[in-house]
C-alpha cells in the first residue's frame, strides 16, 4: 500500500529580480505523512523559498501543490490552511513585542469559539510543553534567544498542525538551546506523528531525519531515492 502523502508538489518555479535569480527551478517534492525530512543545500540554493512556497507564504509562478489533503489556490485558502494544518517556525522568532509569551501563543489560536480562559489555558499548556511556563507572562524583550524560540515553537503548535515547517530553527541559538528545540520537535514527531520539514545546515540534525532533500541552484532531490515512492 502506498503511504499517504502530507505534501506533494510538482514543477515549482519561482524567480526573483526579473527572472535573473531562479530560486526554484522546477522542484518536485513528496513528503509522506508523519515523516521527518531535512532540507539541506548550500546557501542561496532555494531552501527557504521552497518551504515558504509549500506554506503559501511565497507565491509561485508555476507548479502544483497538494498539501494536507487539499489544493489551496487563493490567499484565503492558504491562510485557512496555516490556521489549521501548518505550523511555521522561522530562523527568527518574530514574536510580537507588545504581547507576553502566553499572548503570543494565544494569537495563533484562531477564532475557534474558545473562551478567554480556555485560550489562556491552552496557551499555558503549549508553553509547558516547550518548557517555557516560567516566563508565560513576560514580554519577549526580556527573554533570551533560546527562550524566545521555544515560545515561537509553542506558537507554531497552537492549532495542532499536521505539518510543521521549520527554517533553520536553531540557526541563532547556542548548541544547548538548539538541542532542546530539536529534541522537542522530534519528540512531537514521535509522539503525535507530526510531519516535520526542517531546513538545516547541521549534518547531525539532518541525520536524525528519515530523509534528506538536497537543494542546489533551485533544483532538489532526495539523497537516496528511499523515501518517496
Amino acid at each position, binding site marked *: 500500500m502506498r503511504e499517504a502523502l502530507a505534501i506533494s508538489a510538482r514543477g515549482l518555479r519561482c524567480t526573483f529580480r526579473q527572472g535573473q535569480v531562479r530560486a526554484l527551478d522546477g522542484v518536485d517534492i513528496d513528503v509522506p505523512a508523519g515523516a521527518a525530512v531535512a532540507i539541506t543545500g548550500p546557501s542561496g540554493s532555494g531552501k*527557504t523559498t521552497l518551504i515558504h512556497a509549500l*506554506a503559501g507564504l*511565497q*507565491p509561485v509562478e508555476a507548479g502544483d501543490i497538494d498539501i494536507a489533503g487539499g489544493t489551496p489556490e487563493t490567499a*484565503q485558502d492558504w491562510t485557512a490552511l*496555516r490556521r489549521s494544518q501548518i505550523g511555521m517556525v522561522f530562523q527568527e522568532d*518574530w514574536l510580537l513585542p*507588545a504581547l507576553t509569551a502566553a499572548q503570543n501563543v494565544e*494569537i495563533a489560536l484562531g477564532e475557534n469559539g474558545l473562551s478567554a480562559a480556555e485560550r489562556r489555558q491552552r496557551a499555558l499548556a503549549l508553553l509547558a510543553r516547550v518548557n517555557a511556563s516560567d516566563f508565560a507572562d513576560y514580554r519577549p524583550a526580556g527573554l533570551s534567544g533560546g527562550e524566545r524560540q521555544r515560545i515561537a515553537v509553542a506558537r507554531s503548535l497552537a*492549532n495542532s498542525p499536521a505539518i510543521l515547517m521549520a527554517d533553520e530553527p536553531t540557526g541563532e541559538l547556542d548548541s544547548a538551546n538548539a538541542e532542546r528545540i530539536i529534541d522537542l520537535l522530534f519528540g512531537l514527531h514521535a509522539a503525535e506523528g507530526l510531519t516535520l520539514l526542517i531546513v538545516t545546515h547541521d549534518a547531525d540534525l539532518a541525520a536524525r531525519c528519515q530523509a534528506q532533500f538536497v537543494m542546489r541552484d533551485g533544483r532538489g532531490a532526495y539523497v537516496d531515492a528511499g523515501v518517496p515512492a
Partner: protein
Amino acid sequence: MTALTLALRNLSIWHPRNIGALAGIMIAVASLVALIGLARGVQESLASALVNRGTDALVTEAGAFDLISSILMEETAMALAKQPGVTAVAPELSRLTTLRDGRSVAVTAWPVGTFPWDSLKVTDGRLPATGDGQVAVIGQSLATRAGFAVGDRIELFHTEFQVVGLVTAQSVLGRSLVYAALPVVQELTFRDGQVTSVGLQLDKDQSAETLTQLRDGFPALNIEATADLSDSYFFGQIARVLALTISTVAMLSAVLVIFTTMSTAVNARRGELAILSAIGWPRQRIVASLLIEGAVLSAIAGVLGILGGALGAQVVTALPSITGYIAPVIGPVLLVQAFLVSMAVGLLGTVIPALRATARAPADILRSR
C-alpha cells in the same frame, strides 16, 4: 485573540512610534483649530464691533479702500436721516493716532447723544457731554493694558485729552478703542464737516426695502447692512480669503502628516503583519486590527489636538501686539469638524498603508530582518 484586543495591546505599550504618530496628528489638528479659529476671529472682529453698536447699515464712500480712508460730508448724514425707514443716524469719524508710548490706537468719534454711545457700558466715570472740550472715553482692555484711569491725561492727535470714563463694549475690538466727541476730533484732524462713515438704524420691518431705496437715491454712497459688511470691505475680504487659505493649508498638512505617520508606523511593523499572516490570520482581520489602532490613536490625538489648538489660539490672541483686537472664534462646529477630520484622515492614513503592507507576500518580509 481578536483584532480589537491585539490593537489595544499594541497601543498599550506606547511605542515611540505610536507617540510620534499621536504627536503628528495632534499638531496637525491643533494647527487646524487654532488657525481657522484665528482667521474667523479676524473676520468677525470688524463685523461684530458694528453690529454690537446697534448699527443696522453702514454708509461709506463708494469704492473706499477701507473704513478709515472713506470720506463723506457730514451733511450727508442729515440727508439720510430724512429718508423713510431710517430711524436714526450716527455720523462717525475714525482716525488712527499714536500715544506717547508709541502704541497706536484707533479713535472713534460720534456726536454726543447719538445711538452708538448707548452700546458702551460705562464702568467708571461718564461719557462725554456737550461742551466738554477735549475729553475721551477709553475701552476697558486698552485702559488695562496701557494703564489709564479716569482723571488721567492721554495724548491724542498731539493734543492732551482728559480721560472722563472707562467703557466696555460687547465686541473685543470695541473694548480697545478710544472714543471722543465728533467735533473735537474733526477739528484736530482737519476734517471739519467730514466723517468716515454714517451708521444707520432702520425700521426693522422694512429694512430691505429701505436699503434698496437708499442705494437708488444715493448712488455715490456705499450702503451695506452691517451683517454683510465684513464681506464687502477689503480687510473683510482679505480675512475671508485668509481664513479659507489657512484652513485649506492646515487641512492638507493634517492629511499629509497623518498619512505619513501612519504609513511609517505600518511599514515599521511589516514583520508583525507578516507573522500574523503566517500563523493564519486572514488579511481582513490584520487590516481591521490596524484600523482600530489608527482610529484609537487619531481619536486621542484629535481630542488632544483640539484642546491644544483652542489653547494655542487663546495664547496667540493674548500677545501684546494684537490683544484686544481679535478673539479666536472656535465654536462647537469647528471642534466637531476637526475631530471628524482627524478620524477620517487617521483611518484613510491607516487603510492605504495597511492594504499595501498586507498585499505583499509574507515571505518577502519573513525571509530575514
